[in-house]
């Protein structure tokens, strides 16, 4: 975790002044955007290759482990890792930190790619909602979303082994919708509300969203 750097955002107002940071270090430390988000924004806004390399170091080994869990051999898994990481670079403009943590965004790219590889037909995807560059970034929303991600992590860790395994299987694509119980035991309501606030932010800018 590092303090959020103003220079990577497209917004204008500095939110964390150095003075405030000194005054209450603990409180400000909790108000940090994750490293991954900082790297991803540097990739999105500045096409920063060093930041991309950091994302690779963090995600590539996890991605390979995740893909191999679905039964793909290591060599094929690395091909998907490569496709996913290149997509992260090429479609960076679609990343919106007000609605998604980097891991969530990469998760979806990965599943989409795996399914496109396994099946012949293209995966149907919703219309993209791309954050207009004119929109000022809202750090409190980004931080709140990060915090919801933490809550989810804790909630997952607190599940019984059976429940946690069921959740993992569901998101690894090993369960049909009939098999996915609506009761995963995860408190999804709060993160849904938070993401909807992130969508609300776009609503005024984008037509046809309701």
């Amino acid at each position, binding site marked *: 975790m590092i303090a959020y750097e103003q220079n990577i955002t497209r917004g204008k107002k500095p939110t964390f002044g150095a003075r405030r940071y000194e005054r209450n270090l603990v409180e400000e430390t909790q108000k940090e955007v994750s490293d991954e988000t900082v790297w991803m924004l540097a990739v999105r806004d500045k096409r920063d*290759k060093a930041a*991309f*390399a950091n994302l690779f*170091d963090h995600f*590539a*080994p*996890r991605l*390979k*482990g995740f893909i191999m869990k679905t039964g793909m051999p*290591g060599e094929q*898994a*690395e091909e998907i890792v*490569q496709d996913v990481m*290149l997509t992260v670079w*090429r479609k960076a403009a679609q990343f919106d930190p007000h*609605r*998604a*943590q*980097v*891991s*969530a*965004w*990469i*998760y*979806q790219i990965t*599943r*989409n790619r795996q*399914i496109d590889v396994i*099946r012949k*037909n293209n*995966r*149907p*995807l*919703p*219309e*993209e909602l791309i954050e207009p560059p004119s929109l000022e970034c809202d750090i409190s929303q980004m931080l709140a979303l990060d915090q*919801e*991600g933490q809550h*989810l*992590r804790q909630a997952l860790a607190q599940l019984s082994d059976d429940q946690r395994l069921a*959740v*993992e299987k*569901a*998101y690894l*694509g090993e369960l*049909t*919708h*009939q098999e*996915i*119980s609506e009761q*995963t035991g*995860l408190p*999804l309501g709060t993160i*849904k509300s938070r*993401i*909807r606030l992130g*969508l609300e932010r776009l*609503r005024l800018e984008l037509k*046809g969203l*309701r």
Partner: protein
Amino acid sequence: MTKINHHIPDSMLAAYAAGTLPQPFAIVVASHISMCAHCRGSYEAHQAVGGVVLDGTEIAKISGDLKSSILTQLDEPFTPAAVYDRSGIYPGPVVKTLKGNEPRWKTLGMGVRQDILSADSEGSLRLLYIPAGQAVPEHSHSGLELTLILQGSFSDHTGQFGIGDVEIGDPDLEHTPIADPGDPCICLAATDAPLRFKSLVPRLFQPLFRI
């Protein structure tokens, strides 16, 4: 704009995020999410859970040259995949399925028309056109059916369904939706089993009409 009242169930959104929904259902879900911020929020929440699972996965060692190979590809030109935006009443995923063309309606009788977009072992996907006041031919379901309203509205004994609403039919539901007065009702309907019409089209002709 009317409010969307009938949404996609959570288990289906989770399966959609994970990629396990049959293709016809996935197209309906992608279309609904394109129209519904509520379900887009839920879908993105499922991505967040997927992200937590991904982040917690045991790591696997990456081959030595993968990173440098990817870094050298960053500046290579690439052609982005075609993007299908909404066109008229049709959301992007439907436009993509239609390959950007208008639907090719086939008459079913009584003013009802359909365009079968796909039909295979995974189920079928079709557009239906139902004139105001006209009943959708009565049918019961041997599988699951998802119907997304794109224009107009219909009502059955379970309620009214307007633009953006999704009706979920299961084998227990026997219903006769009737298109409400106003614009003809156009909807996108997916099933994971062949429909069985009780009237209008005798079973005998089913293979002919690919219903």
